[in-house]
């Protein structure tokens, strides 16, 4: 009786294992055929833990991104988005340009060769001999993570030029990211040292990810679609379906209108005022941040350009003008070049296309679409050719 029950249990478990292999095989078959564009696939898990910035891309990961728009993407041996080539070899004679910023630069919604970084490289290569443009974008990045990544990649890739693409709101609001709990947040002390909060580094999740178990899980994720699905599901929550309606309601309520967004107004006020304590503290922190970039510039010889893409379209002009002036002054004081990316993009727009048309795939909101990447690459390559082709 007991033996029969044991035998049945063993057979049942064997069946479960077979199901896992079958599911793995089905997912792999889907990825091998054009069906990956429509049928369910395991969304690639790109990120891993990092002691300095809490998370970063993992090296040599390949897979399909499914959110917003499906695309085959990969990272290279430097743990940055590949431009479609995996065997990048450092060449001391080559010019290296890095473009850093958030998910707009990271551009997981399009294939490696369709990102504006990759396209910029292609345009520049047709004009300048031996040039590489590196995609240093990372989703959800904050100004201090960008600084940390800038320091690291400038030396690793021998960058000659570093273009930081940011919004003023991101600079003013996320320079000090002090959410509590076990989320990663970053603080910068008065001499510019950046720290992740201890609570995050001590959290169970972070500890597991940096342990042998974490290594094993990342190994399995690199080699198994089932584990990738499992990881995605764990990240979203096992009871995900109960939460979907709430998420949709939040997304709906945050849709913007034609008025100046609250975040932009606050950012403008902080930049244009210097009287209140909050503004003073933010100005001091921005100055520290820019000072760090300036030091990096002096130490390594990299040319740093701060490109701004603001959301000030419908905001009061007096505020935007004084904020612009304040930003330019802070950059000038630290010997960093200012680049008004948004104005330049407007001048490169094809006929009948607006800035809003550059974003979103099926829906009108979201990350850069294919047109967006084309406009960004032509704008940036033009700017680089006009300003730096002689250097």
């Amino acid at each position, binding site marked *: 009786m007991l033996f029969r029950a044991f035998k049945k249990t063993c057979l049942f478990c064997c069946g479960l294992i077979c199901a896992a292999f079958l*599911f793995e095989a089905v997912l792999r078959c889907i990825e091998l055929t054009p069906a990956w564009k429509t049928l369910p696939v395991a969304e690639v898990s790109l990120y891993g833990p990092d002691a300095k910035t809490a998370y970063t891309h993992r090296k040599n990961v390949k897979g399909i991104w499914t959110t917003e728009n499906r695309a085959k993407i990969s990272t290279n041996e430097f743990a940055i988005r590949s431009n479609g080539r995996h065997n990048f070899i450092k060449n001391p004679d080559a010019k290296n340009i890095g473009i850093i910023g958030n998910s707009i630069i990271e551009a997981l919604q399009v294939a490696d060769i369709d990102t504006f970084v990759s396209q910029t490289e292609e345009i520049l290569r047709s004009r300048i001999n031996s040039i590489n443009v590196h995609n240093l974008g990372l989703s959800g990045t904050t100004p201090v993570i960008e600084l940390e990544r800038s320091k690291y990649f400038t030396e690793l890739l021998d960058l000659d030029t570093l273009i930081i693409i940011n919004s003023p709101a991101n600079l003013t609001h996320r320079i000090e990211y002090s959410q509590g709990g076990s989320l990663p947040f970053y603080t910068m002390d008065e001499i510019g040292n950046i720290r992740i909060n201890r609570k995050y580094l001590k959290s169970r999740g972070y500890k597991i990810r940096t342990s042998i178990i974490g290594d094993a899980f990342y190994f399995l994720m690199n080699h198994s679609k089932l584990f990738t699905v499992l990881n995605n599901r764990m990240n979203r929550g096992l009871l995900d379906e109960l939460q979907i309606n709430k998420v949709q309601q939040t997304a709906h309520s945050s849709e913007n209108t034609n008025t100046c967004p609250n975040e932009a107004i606050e950012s403008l006020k902080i930049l244009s005022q210097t009287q209140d304590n909050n503004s003073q503290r933010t100005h001091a922190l921005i100055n520290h941040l820019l000072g760090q970039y300036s030091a990096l510039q002096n130490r390594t010889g990299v040319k740093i350009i701060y490109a701004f893409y603001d959301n000030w379209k419908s905001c009061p002009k007096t505020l935007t003008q004084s904020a612009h002036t304040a930003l330019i002054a802070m950059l000038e004081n630290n010997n960093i070049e200012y680049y008004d990316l948004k104005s330049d993009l407007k001048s490169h727009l094809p006929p009948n296309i607006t800035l809003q048309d550059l974003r979103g795939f099926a829906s009108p909101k979201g990350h850069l679409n294919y047109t967006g990447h084309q406009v960004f690459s032509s704008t940036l390559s033009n700017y680089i050719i006009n300003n730096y082709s002689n250097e």
Partner: protein
Amino acid sequence: MRFDALYFLFFFAIVYGLSKIPRIGPAVYILASFLFYIVAGWQDLALIITMIIFNYGASFYVSRSKIVFSTTVAINLATLLYFKYSSFLGSSLGANEIFNTQIIIPLGISFYVFQMIAYQVDIVRGTCRQITSFPRFYLFVAFFPQLIAGPIVRANDISNQINRLFKKGQRNNTIISLGLGLCLLGLVKKVILSDSLAPIVDTNFSIMPDTALAAWQGILTFTFQIYYDFSGYSDIALGLGYLLGIRLPINFKQPYLAKSPQEFWQRWHITLSQWVRDYLYIPLGGNKIKGPIKQLTALILVMTLMGLWHGANWTFAAWGASWGVAILLWRIGAPFFNKRPLVSWLGTLLVTVILWVFFRAPNMGFALDYLQIMFTPSTLNMNNLSWIWSGMIVLGGLHLLEGRYYNLKGIKLMKKINQPFCWGILIGLCFTILLLPKALDNPFIYFRF
């Protein structure tokens, strides 16, 4: 609750486990059905319980008094009209757009109201026995696998099974592999196929396609999406019922292989078609009506009402009425079509696909514009569409193959492999499919009706 959610798997595992405990099976089913519907909200729950109590009480008197019977049916219909059609009727016959809005009508109301009306009529006709015990009647109406989107069950179909369950704790012999196999088949249809097609359809029906090819692609995609969605739900319902020892009626038999519009309705949402036939069409005279004009009128009336059953929108009325016309045309052309089965099949499929435009379009204006684009010649640009068209061929192939396993042979095979090893594979596959995260909230389409 939704069958395609991981939490439902855990819920069902608990229900199944508890139902195995001797003598508490019926109580577990009743409690599970209650909990299953609670997720829809307290108001919906209050409504269904009120309706069950009312119909249970009325069932003792309907056969004695015509007035009681008429009042009972009228109250059931009035409830449906009020909750489903009041905004449609109230706003000077404006339409409800059901695909782009949240579900606002009480969940499953169209299904359980029709089920209870059929029950009252059957009692009066003497074609079914009255269910005298309230818990049994509650289970007959609210048995959770079929509660929200059918199949529309007749008392004759399951009252004996429920009685056996209550009396002796006996359930039908369960071939676990068959139940699990049906659940897996339903999940594949819903999660792998239907949900994958949903974004393509949504895009096509939110922005008017600019070429005939794109318009045909959009509606063909919807043709498969709705079939895999609804038949997927029905397969899971059948599978769950089977696992719990209650056999539910089949709702689909490869509808896109039908060789006439009439046959289509014998293969598509079979339980609804039978309901309409038995409680609407035949009482109106059925096939005995003489004269093509009278026949046409009766058919259009019945089919329009069936169309409106799906939703409070003129598009559904147009969809139903057009089906009425199509059925009559095939009847008139029977001598021609009977000799040419291939032409008849292609014609039926074409009619089905074209009429889905009314079903899916948000309003009549959109539907007519969409149809106009479908029949406007345009240049063929197959660049981006070729893989979608290839997909259509594959989906059609899968539909064709269904008959190969959805038959007695299939059941015998499942009986043969009814072993723990096979259960492991089937449960494992169901679990892994449910693990796939959902980027969009795509409830079963028929939850909206």
